[in-house]
């Protein structure tokens, strides 16, 4: 199995509704976008602001452009996060994207009816991943981007993106297996 297969995209531009039914579309994509935004912001509140700004921009100006909406939206998200970091920098903080620690409070995923311990273990393991690996993992799994698209977003090569993804999965498996062994 090759790592460079085409990511299964759930939507293309032609699937974006022409009417005002943005709410259905946002219900489906909002959670994934929020998780991606949390990689580049310092708090959940900042991530929500970034999602709001990027989604409004996308819905008003970009949804009829053609191509894959997810990639455009994530570009918009990252740009909004950079803008927010710049805005914070004017108030004395450093001008750089946050490393998105996913914070230590609040859940990252919805709680399933069963297997909550497993979800918690996965969240803990994700929080302890190096930020650069977690970023690639999130963009691949929940952002549904290809390695080429991730590389373009982050300014790295597709091979580096694929390596970080594989390291991230390996590290997660290691931590989760250890957690299983220790109960």
């Amino acid at each position, binding site marked *: 199995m090759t790592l460079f297969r085409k990511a299964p995209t759930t939507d293309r531009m032609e699937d974006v509704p022409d009417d005002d039914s943005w709410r259905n579309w946002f219900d489906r994509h909002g959670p994934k976008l*929020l998780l991606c935004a949390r990689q580049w912001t310092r708090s959940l509140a900042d991530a929500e602001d970034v999602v709001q700004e990027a989604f409004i921009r996308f819905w008003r100006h970009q949804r009829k452009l053609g191509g894959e909406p997810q990639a455009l939206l994530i570009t918009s998200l990252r740009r909004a996060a950079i803008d927010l970091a710049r805005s914070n920098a004017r108030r004395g903080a450093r001008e750089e994207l946050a490393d998105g620690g996913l914070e230590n409070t609040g859940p990252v995923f919805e709680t399933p009816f069963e297997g909550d311990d497993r979800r918690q273990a*996965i969240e803990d393991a994700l929080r302890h991943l190096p930020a650069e690996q977690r970023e690639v993992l999130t963009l691949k799994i929940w952002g549904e981007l290809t390695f080429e698209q991730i590389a373009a977003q982050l300014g790295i090569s597709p091979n580096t993106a694929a390596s970080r993804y594989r390291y991230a999965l390996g590290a997660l498996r290691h931590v989760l297996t250890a957690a299983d062994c220790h109960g």
Partner: protein
Amino acid sequence: MDNDLQELEAELKRLRPIAPSTFTVERIERALASRRRSFLAWAALPLAAALVGLIAFREKPGAARAVPGPLAPKSVATYKPVSADNVLYDRTDEGLVTLADGSTARRYRSSYVDTITWRDPRTQASLRWSVPRTEERVVPVRFQ
């Protein structure tokens, strides 16, 4: 990638991230609704002007009908958007304002340059479009 990693990958894909708060959804709804109202108001102006022009033309006796010119050749280039960048170059906090319903909000004015790039994958020709944009955001303030 071995089977263990593929299983882990599938397990991660089944997890659904938490959704944005209802407060964020409401803010999006308000922003999109206000934009639609202002668009309708502005769209009415050229429509009215066109209607007046049409009536004047029809009432003018002996007015010659415009003869359509030769059709422009259809472009065979198929440009696809490859990137969309938005650069913020100014943001001003305009302070607290009182809305029509009496509630208090904080108003921010942001100035952007939006740049969208299209590329024809066949010829690699690219087209870049940049436009300045000013955005005004009103964020409700809650005093506790």
